[in-house]
């Protein structure tokens, strides 16, 4: 399958909105995890998150539309606008039938849904906004972005827990490489900082309880890890065929060249401890990209900061890369802004693309004492390193593995 160009990046995250601000904060290694202030979370075991409080400052969405949509659609709309702007694309000049949207989400829009459910119980049926039906569900952002830009081509929303958005990007590449579309907006969005969504994440048991020190809480691969911290936001890319991108004078910042996905098939929540299926997904992505494992210069890790997840991930990369693994920089930069669940893969990819562009690997913060020895974790601060090819790993509950191979573009 052919490579696909990435020509635009849009990012809405706790570490910054817009790729310039985002990258400046990421490379500095600064944590954006804080105590939750949106609602009273004092009774929750984990009450910290990567929260976005200034989205309105970057948004051109009308008040009229905002009252009909959930925050996760708003984030996707802002990220889409930024991605298109970055790519230098005016959608009005595109054939709407040949533009698609491929997005990933895990939870749906609970900020909207919770308010309406409260109204249902307090005021009865008539207290519920008629927009509830179209605001909460995981494909709502796809619909809103399509309406906003008049996009009419083949589109899809993927719901596969934390692997959702990387999977959506993998699908987008497949569709583009078959020449079915000219251009795709691909990525994901998640808004889990709501009372009910936070409760569900707490119940799952994978969240850090280090509420006293939010900035030190998310510590993937560290001996003292006690779970991840949730974050909210959206990451969206403009993807298009290489020929088309070049013919319109765009300079692709990267190419997506391989994708692999497998299922562990062992448990409804946990992954297989041997990491064999993740290893197979990595091999699959490398074969798809026609890239030798020796060429991989950076691995972006999923890093849930839960023993079985982190250990099986390390086992998988050891299985694939063997003794060479010690020379490959590894990092999990989401330790700075939180795990965006269904949008985490898109954010990991964006960080990796920016890392390739700037020849700088951002750190995994709080990784003071790695649980696994002999590996090249980039810790504490960013490290200068030329990367021409990188691997991104994203996994979901129930043993979903998805892996992407990306190559440096023209920067």
């Amino acid at each position: 399958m052919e490579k696909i160009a990435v020509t635009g990046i849009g990012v809405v995250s706790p570490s910054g909105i817009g790729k310039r601000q985002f990258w400046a904060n990421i490379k500095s290694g600064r944590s954006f995890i804080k105590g939750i202030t949106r609602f009273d979370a004092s009774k929750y075991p984990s009450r910290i998150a990567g929260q976005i409080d200034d989205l309105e400052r970057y948004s051109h969405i009308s008040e009229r539309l905002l009252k009909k949509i959930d925050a996760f659609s708003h984030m996707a709309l802002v990220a889409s606008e930024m991605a298109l702007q970055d790519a230098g694309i005016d959608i009005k000049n595109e054939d709407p039938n040949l533009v698609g949207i491929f997005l990933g989400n895990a939870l749906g829009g609970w900020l909207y849904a919770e308010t309406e459910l409260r109204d249902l119980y307090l005021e009865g049926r008539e207290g519920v906004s008629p927009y509830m039906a179209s605001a909460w569900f995981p494909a709502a952002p796809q619909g809103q972005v399509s309406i906003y830009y008049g996009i009419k081509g083949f589109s899809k929303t993927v719901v596969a827990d934390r692997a959702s958005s990387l999977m959506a990007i993998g699908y987008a590449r497949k569709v583009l490489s078959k020449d079915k579309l000219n251009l795709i907006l691909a990525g994901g969005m998640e808004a889990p900082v709501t009372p009910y969504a936070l409760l569900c994440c707490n119940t799952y048991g994978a969240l850090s309880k280090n509420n006293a020190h939010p900035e030190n809480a998310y510590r993937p691969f560290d001996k003292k890890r006690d779970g991840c911290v949730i974050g909210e936001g959206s990451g969206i890319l403009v993807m298009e065929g290489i020929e088309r991108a070049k013919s319109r004078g765009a300079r692709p910042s990267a190419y997506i060249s391989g994708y692999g996905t497998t299922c562990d098939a062992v448990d409804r929540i946990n992954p297989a401890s041997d990491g064999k299926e993740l290893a197979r997904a990595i091999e699959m992505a490398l074969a798809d990209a026609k890239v030798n494992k020796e060429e991989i210069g950076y691995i972006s890790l999923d890093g849930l900061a839960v023993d079985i997840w982190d250990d099986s991930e390390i086992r998988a990369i050891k299985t694939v890369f063997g003794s060479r693994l010690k020379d490959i920089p590894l990092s999990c930069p989401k330790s700075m802004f939180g795990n965006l669940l269904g949008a985490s893969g898109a954010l990991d990819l964006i960080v990796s693309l920016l890392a390739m562009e700037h020849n700088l690997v951002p750190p995994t913060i709080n990784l003071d004492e790695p649980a696994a020895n002999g590996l090249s974790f980039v810790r504490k601060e960013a490290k200068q390193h030329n990367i021409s090819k990188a691997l991104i790993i994203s996994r979901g509950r129930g043993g979903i593995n998805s892996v992407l191979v990306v190559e440096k573009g023209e920067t």
Partner: protein
Amino acid sequence: MDTKAKIKEVLVKLLRVKPEELKDDARLYDSIGVDSTEMVETVIALEKEFKVKLSPKEITKFSTINDIEKNVQSKISV
């Protein structure tokens, strides 16, 4: 405040449109581009405002402000 002014006030507040966008004899669909869900919301808001039972079949996105006024008036007088 007369019925028409109240109807306009409800629409402005509910749909976050500018008062000057509302034309008495233009269909809401043509003047402010309402969708069917906004009309469900509008009918509920008008029912609350005027304390009458209105029909979403009679007040649609193809109604004008004048049509809505007429409809509301007929229910009030009943």
